[in-house]
């Protein structure tokens, strides 16, 4: 792959003495959506934590946009153009929606036009504009996810790491969230996404990546992975493939 946006090379990392990532290597193409699938406990979320500097690497290197980012702090990574949207609820429920957005940029370098960016973002999500000045805890699950994505977008990222955005959302909201991601791709943002909703995610993705026991099992065009009989049996059939 020439000139990937993100490149992991032989990552070894884990929790305490437990090794989860066992020499994980892969590259992520620019401007595409790559979906990561794999069994529970394969280390998908752990890879994201490792990329985002939340987990110390025991070995291996990570390159982003041509430079080594191995060992960088989250703050530096944000400034370099990476944002991370973890699984679950990652907002300040007691603050207003607007404050949540402002806090998204509190650690990053000064963004002079932050107020304008917030206005523009609120224009894009009318449901959030309606609730801009009320507590974020009043948002629905889907709206909270949108708020998190929006908060990351204020920083004008090159790469978004998003972990199971569809979890707990109604099918309609899943569609809506995926539509936002496609919109971002159209603007040139690269998206690396973990999804249990594998079939639906791969259908809208360009690339697919299968992770197992902390290693890359398969990596290629999403269509090939969708059509791979072994994968279909392992990850796309049964409960996992059903629209959740």
């Amino acid at each position, binding site marked *: 792959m020439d000139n990937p946006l993100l490149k992991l090379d032989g990552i070894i990392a884990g929790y305490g003495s437990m090794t989860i990532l066992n020499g994980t290597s892969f590259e992520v193409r620019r401007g595409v959506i790559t979906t990561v699938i794999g069994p529970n406990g394969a280390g998908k979320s752990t890879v994201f934590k490792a990329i985002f500097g*939340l987990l110390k690497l025991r070995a291996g290197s990570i390159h982003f946009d041509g430079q080594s980012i191995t060992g960088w702090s*989250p703050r530096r990574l*944000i400034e370099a153009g990476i944002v991370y949207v973890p699984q679950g609820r990652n907002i300040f429920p*007691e603050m207003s929606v607007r404050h949540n957005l402002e806090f998204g940029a*509190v*650690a*990053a370098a000064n963004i002079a036009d932050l107020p304008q960016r917030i206005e523009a973002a609120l224009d894009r999500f009318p449901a959030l504009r309606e609730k801009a000045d009320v507590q974020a805890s009043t948002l629905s699950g889907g709206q909270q996810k949108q708020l998190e994505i929006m*908060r990351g977008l204020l920083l004008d990222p090159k790469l978004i790491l998003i972990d199971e955005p569809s979890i707990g959302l109604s099918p309609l909201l899943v569609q809506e969230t995926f539509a936002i991601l496609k919109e971002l791709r159209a603007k040139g943002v690269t998206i690396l996404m973990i999804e249990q909703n594998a079939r639906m995610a791969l259908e809208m993705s360009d690339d697919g990546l299968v992770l197992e026991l902390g290693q890359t099992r398969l990596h290629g065009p999403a269509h090939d992975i969708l059509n791979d009989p072994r994968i279909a049996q392992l990850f796309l059939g049964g409960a996992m493939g059903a629209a959740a």
Partner: protein
Amino acid sequence: MASFMSLVIAGLATGAIYALIAIGFSLLWQTSQTINFAQGEFVMLPAFFVLAAINAGAPFWLAALIGLVISVIILGAMFKRLLVDPMLRHGVLPLAIATMALSIFLRESVKEFYSAEASPFPSFIPGTTIGFAGISVSLQHVGVVLVAIASVMALTALLDRTPIGRQMQACAQNPDVARILGIPVERMIMYTFLINGLLVGIASLLVSPIYLAKFSSGETLGLAAFIAAIVGGFNRIRGAIAGGFLLGIADNLAAAYVSTQYRGAVPLFLLIAVILLRPQGLFGKAEERTV
């Protein structure tokens, strides 16, 4: 009525000091789940740093400055590094117990190595009494209130208006979310410990001229701050301020109108009333954490 007003002003002075101590107490809780049972001793100790510096020949202003710096270093940074960080790995409760042990250690050390007697402590503000509209007011009490209010205002401005302060708030609300926003959570927690070191130092400079510097004075102060923090809602700075003032005034009025003997019981009555009627505190919110 005039004496009632004087009592209220004296109560405000006591309350302002309680508020400073309670703010630090609740800051530590919010950012790092530290229940610092040595907070009272943390207020007792800086006075002795100052006295030691004076004994070594430093003028009072310099000694006061030295006292503040040492309390930021020892009661802020070293407290976190040497006690909180290692203990917190074992849980909130072991840490709380360790701070209880620390309080005994500090109290007994001062008694052993400095003095078991109360030592007079100099003041920046003269102890004269002024008459104002028929009310006699101690200048010292007024000064204490003003200094404490200025400190609280400076702190809230820091928390609300500066990027550092806002990052500290984010850490208090949810450290995991703060981390993914790129906020250096560990550093922010350290800042709250340094701020607590400064707050207890200031409180020590304010309280010691009134109540003298004594090894045992931390017991009452620590309990009062603890109660003020709970009364105000453990998780709010505004609550700690209100709780502190409320307690200070109740304390002074009770001493005058009820009985000095039962004075010590007033905070406890207040505490029980709040726990029964409004367990989340006057300003607190159940289950939520915020500055």
